[in-house]
């Protein structure tokens, strides 16, 4: 069990914000942290890892990571962390990146085989594609057999096909090694496919906590979309998810509409 009860004042672009998070995460859970940019997702993840200081308490399986202003050193937490930019050691080959973490050649080979990287193990990171780097970062994060795996938007820089493939790979590794995984993501399909639980962060606090279905299923008859264009024939182009939808609107409605605005679309009328 991972007990979290932390707070920290953040100085963001929107002024001061109080990050205040309290929750318990069970062993083996796959938790997604979702929320708009600037809601404190990455900072929360960094606090969990010990890369940023915060007030409050944190304990992992009854070992205190944070208590009375004292934090357990990053080095002693045994965490796997995948950064958004992968942050591979540029001076080391793929294999050396893994062995630097833990000098266990058999385990490194096993991980590289699982992620189909065996043929690239002597390459330097700069020779790899984004997807390959991501897989190396994931393998490296698992080298210490961490109890807790933290992923900071690990797939955001990849195209849709690669993302799908790596989502499955992450899930496979999560199950195979029985880690507790916490992943920052704002991609709904990704969260739905991978996570068993979602925490939605808004202005530094958890505003929603539940299974992806509970949290993300909106009113069945309501869709939300972004207004992209209003043409003179009385049609509005709206982006819903990745789909463009065309809707007829009246002159009266047009006076209330602004390009870029978020609209609630019901099946029979707009707004």
């Amino acid at each position, binding site marked *: 069990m991972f007990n979290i009860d932390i707070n920290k004042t953040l100085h963001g672009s929107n002024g001061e914000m109080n990050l205040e998070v309290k929750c318990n995460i069970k062993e083996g859970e796959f938790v997604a942290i979702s929320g708009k940019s600037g809601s404190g997702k990455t900072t929360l993840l960094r606090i969990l890892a010990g890369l940023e200081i915060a007030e409050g308490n944190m304990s992992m399986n009854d070992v205190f990571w944070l208590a009375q202003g004292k934090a357990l050193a990053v080095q002693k937490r045994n965490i796997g962390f995948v950064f958004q930019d992968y*942050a591979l*050691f540029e*001076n080391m080959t793929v294999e050396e990146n893994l062995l630097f973490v833990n000098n266990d050649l058999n385990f490194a080979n096993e991980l590289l085989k699982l992620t189909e990287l065996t043929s690239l193990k002597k390459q330097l990171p700069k020779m790899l594609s984004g997807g390959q780097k991501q897989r190396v970062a994931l393998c490296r994060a698992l080298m210490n057999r961490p109890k807790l795996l933290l992923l900071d938007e690990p797939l955001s820089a990849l195209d849709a096909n690669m993302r799908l493939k790596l989502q499955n790979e992450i899930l496979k590794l999560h199950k195979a090694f029985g880690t507790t995984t916490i992943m920052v993501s704002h991609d709904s399909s990704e969260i739905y496919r991978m996570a068993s639980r979602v925490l939605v962060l808004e202005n530094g606090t958890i505003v929603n906590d539940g299974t992806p279905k509970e949290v993300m299923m909106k009113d069945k008859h309501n869709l939300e979309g972004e207004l992209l264009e209003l043409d003179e024939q009385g049609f509005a182009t709206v982006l819903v998810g990745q789909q463009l939808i065309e809707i007829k609107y009246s002159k009266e409605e047009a006076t209330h509409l602004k390009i870029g605005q978020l609209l609630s679309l019901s099946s029979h009328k707009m707004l």
Partner: protein
Amino acid sequence: MLETLKTLDLTPFLLSFKLAGITTLILFILSLPLAWYLSQTKSKTKPFIEALTALPIVLPPSVLGFYILIVFAEVDLNFTFTGLVIASCFYSLPFMVQPLQGGFEGLNKNMLEASYLAGKSKIVTLFRVALPNIRPALLTALIITFAHTVGEFGVILMIGGSISGETKVASIAIYEMVEIMDYTMAHIYSGIMLLISFVVLLSVYIFNHTQKKIGGFN
């Protein structure tokens, strides 16, 4: 002309390079932790330390030389090679610290954090992750420090005197030749200095240029 070249006394050059070599080595050892600390700290003392280390760039060598002269008089180090080494370490300090610090500051912070997350200490991270990833900055620091020490004149003039084989480095030798109006030797010595300095700088720039071209480190 050929006769002159044959009888050319190379001792001042050897002394210059010996001085520069030892200074570079000592400064590297001393500056590495300092540059690493400055690149990582958020302490309020950072600007003070930075200003102190940058002083030798701004101060006239005579000022630096004067203070060192006063201190060395107490410990009997004036007009000795050891004294020159210590003085050179002050004189060339910023040329070692600043490129190293710049290199460390330019590193991806996440890469260093990844090392900490892997359970590695700051020292291990410094030597196995940070240092190998700032190779161009490291080379610049070493070469520029070496070259700058070879080019040292004012400080040495004040505290070193001109004892042959002990403190008479190339720059001082040239100064003396001009003073006694031996322009032939002054030309030869100056020409050699010019050539060496240019070749050293050229090789640094070529190396750093090719590193960037092949998408090397940094």
